[in-house]
Structures are given as structure tokens and as C-alpha cells.
């Protein structure tokens, strides 16, 4: 059995569906600004954080789920009423969180490998 399942989604609805399909599992979600055709995100912090987060994924718990979620383009994200901000209460991208728990790392916190590892390995 694979250590964890990675799912790539785009937008709020797809994110919610993916989560509800995996109810009861330990779900980690990484929110990033959309990537363009060249695979580059409009969000510079997301570009910086992604390799750090990916570098710690070998520490994900057995049987967990890792959702890589592109939130949308920059204008969508800047709108304070977008679904991610309103309902999921996200305040910035990148955000790495453990779904259903208060465990969350926001923006520069995602640059720190030790914090990412802490989230993946501690209860």
C-alpha cells in the first residue's frame, strides 16, 4: 500500500468533493495560486514553498491523503469573498493545513522544512 495518496485538484468545489470522498482519513491540503502553462504559479511564495513541502512528504503518515489544490487566478484570490477565504477561512497562499484540525502553516511558515515536518509527523 502506498504511504499516502496525492490528489491534484483545482477550485473550491473540486476540493470539497475530494475531501468528502475521503471522509475519516487524515487529510493534508496544500493551497497554491494557479500555475500557468509553463508550470509557474502567479504566487511567488507558493513557488518558493512547494519544493520545501514536497521535500518533507516522505514523512506523511501511512494512509494519509495529500491534496494539492490550485485555488484560482490572482484576481479570484484577491477577492475577499472567494470561497476559500469565506468558508475555509484561508488567509493567504501558500497554506498547508491538516483538514479538520487547527494545524496550519501559512505563507512564510511553509518555507520552514522543520515546521512542515512537524505537522506531518506529530499528533
Amino acid at each position: 500500500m502506498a504511504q499516502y495518496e496525492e490528489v491534484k485538484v483545482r477550485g473550491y468545489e473540486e476540493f470539497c468533493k475530494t475531501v468528502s470522498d475521503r471522509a475519516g482519513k487524515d487529510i493534508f491540503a496544500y493551497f497554491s495560486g494557479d500555475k500557468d502553462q509553463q508550470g509557474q504559479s502567479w504566487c511567488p511564495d507558493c513557488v518558493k514553498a512547494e519544493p520545501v513541502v514536497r521535500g518533507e512528504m516522505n514523512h506523511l503518515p501511512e494512509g494519509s491523503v495529500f491534496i494539492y489544490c490550485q485555488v484560482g487566478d490572482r484576481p479570484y484570490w484577491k477577492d475577499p469573498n472567494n470561497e476559500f477565504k469565506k468558508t475555509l477561512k484561508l488567509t493567504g497562499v501558500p497554506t498547508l493545513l491538516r483538514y479538520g484540525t487547527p494545524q496550519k502553516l501559512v505563507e512564510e511558515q511553509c518555507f520552514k522544512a522543520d515546521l512542515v515536518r512537524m505537522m506531518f509527523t506529530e499528533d
Partner: protein
Amino acid sequence: MAALYSRSRLKLLLRSALHLSNRTLTGSGGKFDYDLLVIGGGSGGLACSKEAAQLGQKVAVLDYVEPSVRGTKWGLGGTCVNVGCIPKKLMHQAALLGSAVKDAQKYGWQIPQPVSHDWATLAESVQNYVKSLNWGHRVQLQDRKVKYMNMKGSLVDDHTVRCLSSRGKEMTVTARNILIATGGRPKYPTHVPGALEFGISSDDLFWLKETPGKTLVVGASYVGLECAGFLTGIGLEATVMVRSIALRGFDQQMSRLVTDYMQGYGTRFCWDCVPKKVEKLPSGLLQVTWTDSRTGQDHQDTFNSVLWAVGRAPETGTLNLQQVGVELDGDTRKVMVADDERTSVPNIYAIGDIAQGRPELTPTAIHAGKLLARRLAGLSSQLMDYSNVPTTVFTPLEYGCVGLSEEEAERRYGKDKIEVYHAFYKPLEFTVAERDSSQCYIKVVCERDGDQKVVGLHFTGLNAGEVTQGFALSLRCGLSYAQLRDSVGIHPTCAEELTKIYITKRSGLDATVTGC
């Protein structure tokens, strides 16, 4: 010349230079694992460890929560975050909102009455917030390079601590300095049959998934009164059983106003009563038998929950303190400390609830922790000033105070050497809401002579904590009655009444404030 600086010589110099800098990195000359080991991750322990780490010390924190009798446990942050100040204040707020909803109708809001309260919703919100604080502390410790271990610590010798995890993993850690900040836990009246089996404490109350229902709160300390207060406020039937007096240690006139308000608010009081036994009925209800010490008669009633709020005991049991020479106070069993928080063992310190003679308050533990860190890093010699520490009791009618009670001032100065100014006032918010303000009161205790230095300030009313904070600062700056009278109030507020106060107790005149 060149021979002196041969490559091998340089290599040797470089290696010893690196060795020296390595020693500086560990900061303890390589002798100890840590510069500072903190046992207890609560208000005091965390503040000290974070400050020490910021100042370049190598720090580790041990935090471990022994489950309550009921099995309740919680995360990093100590009593305040998990089972004290934070959940208490949130639940108090829930109760205040209940009153606000009732008042709202008079202010024009069309709210269908009666409004009901759901415990599960409140509990979940509070518990989630507390968990976010646990996480926040965890991130902060990691960020500041403080090593965190979820393990139970006990002293082996004055520099060595044995750490034990819940799974039985064991390790030993050494440190140049050790800080004991393990706090306290609620006491159970073990001599009362059924107390342990059927009662709960404040450790459990905030983590209950289901409503506590009709509750008997035994104990009239601020823990007991605050809990009974918010339980009443959210619509539950709450009774407070008082052995002798309420709010021991606080100004007793103010204490009376607090409990009078609570009685008017709907909380029942059993004065001069002591519990005799607790039994569980087939229905699941708890039957409590108690003795009225005035009459000697026994009484009985049934409750859904019994909350013991009969005092707190210091968490020293498993620390192995005495074998290492750390002395405890004979009565309280708290750790004896000097002005610089040092225990009887020179490199072992204690702050917070565990330390003898200290206020059992978060801000003093935090402040003392930070100052201690600075002293340990050799950057300061400033000691913690424990005098004139303000506090607030968050009962339905809040009570904020700083300095001496009237009784204590009389004891220290003599009755004829103090002047007590006082006033009964009515918050504007109560007028339209047609609420009774009989217990809204202010008392300023001053030296009688000269400018009349303020030695104690007491306030019951709304937002008492917010009102008292600023005045507490002025007290530390040497506030006199003359200055108080000379200051201009903010209108319309309750706090401004402090600047207008002028009736003395001595005059015997009616102290009720009239109009603007």
C-alpha cells in the same frame, strides 16, 4: 615567521577555534545538554523558554498532562490555555451574550423568546480555539528552536532530569539551569464518599461533549463562582455550596456584592454547607447529601453533575524534588523560592502556580519567566515585582481589583489612617434594559494623610477587567486620590465614575451616584 604559521599549525588553530565556537553553540561548554531545561509548558514555562531561546540559550521544554480522574487530557499551553483563563472567559462571554439577547428586546430587537442555548456548539467552538492555541505554541517553540518533549520529568540530581513518555520511553537530559513550572491541579475532597467516582473538576468541565446539566458547584473560590456563573448564564440550574466565605483572600464587601448579584441572576447558594456524600442513582442522576453547619441538619438533592472547586494542589508529586534538596513549604507543599525565583538548590528555579507565595495568575508567571530568562542569560538583574498585581473575577457581575482590600489596608495602616471613597453607580446600558444595578460599586482605599495615596482599588460592573487595567498602571505609578479627582473622565462610561468619586465611608453619607 613563515614557520610559525605552517599549514599544520594553522589546521590546529582552526580546529581549536571551531571547537570553541561549537562550545559556544551548545552554550554550556559541552558539559550539559541544555543551558535551561523547563519542566512544565504552561504560561510561565513557555514564556521563560521562548525568551531564553531568543537570548541565545539552548532550551528544552518538557510538558506532560497527567489525565484527570475522569480521563480528560489536553495539549501544550498549561492550565490557562486549556482548562483555565481561556475557555473560562469564552464561556463567560457565552453567558453574557445570553443576557444581552434578553436585554436586546428593550433596545428594539425583534428576537423570538425564549432563546435556548446548545452546549455542544459552545464546547466545540471553545475546544477548537484551545486546540489552535496548542498548535500555535507548538509552532512558536519549533520556530524559536526550543526543543519540546511531551514527556514527564523528574529530577535525578541538580542538573539531571529523567524524562518519561506516555508509551514508557525513557531518557535522561542534563542542564545547567532547571526551571520548575508545573503548576497545579484541582483538589478532590477524597474524604467525601463518591467524590472521586462521580464528581468532575474544572479540568473536565470545559472538555465535556455533553451539557453538564443541573450542576452543584462545591466551593466559592473564583473558580467555583465563575463556573456557576456562566452555567447559570447559559440557562442551566447551578448551585454553589459554600463552606464559610466566598472569594477568600479578596475584599469581603466586594465578594458579597458579587454573590448577591449572582443570587439575583439565578444562581442558588447553599451557605455554610459541607458535602457529606455523593451517590449515583439508577436514573444516572447524582444524589448529594450535605450538612448545614448552622443547624447540623442533613439535606439532599439530585444533580446531573457535581463540580469540585475546593482548591488546587501543586504538581510536585512526581518531580522527586525533596530527594534532590528542593524544599517545599510545610503547609502548601509549594516550592519555596527567593526573590529571584531560586529554590533551595542554587541552579533550580520555580515560577507560576508551583511557587510559594506567588499569585496564581498567568501574567505574573509570564512576566517572572521573561525576567528570569534575562537574568539567566546575564543580561539583567531585574527582579519580578509581585506587588499591586491587578486581577479580575469573571463572575456574571465582574469584579476587578488592584492593591489592598479594605480589611488588609485597615490591618496595615489602622482604620483611622485610611480613607475609603466609594460609590454605587448605574451603568447606562442597564437603564433601558431595566436591569438592577444595586451591586455596581466602586471603592478606592487611600492613605488618609497628604495627597492620599491610593493603596487599593475595587470595581464591580461590566468589563471590569478592561476598566481596572489602566487604573492598575496608575497605581503602580503612585496614584493619589488628589490625582484621581483631578483627572477628567470619558463620558458616558462606567470607568469615569472613578474620577468623580468623593463620598467617604467615614462620612456615612449615601454613596449612590445621581445623574450626570
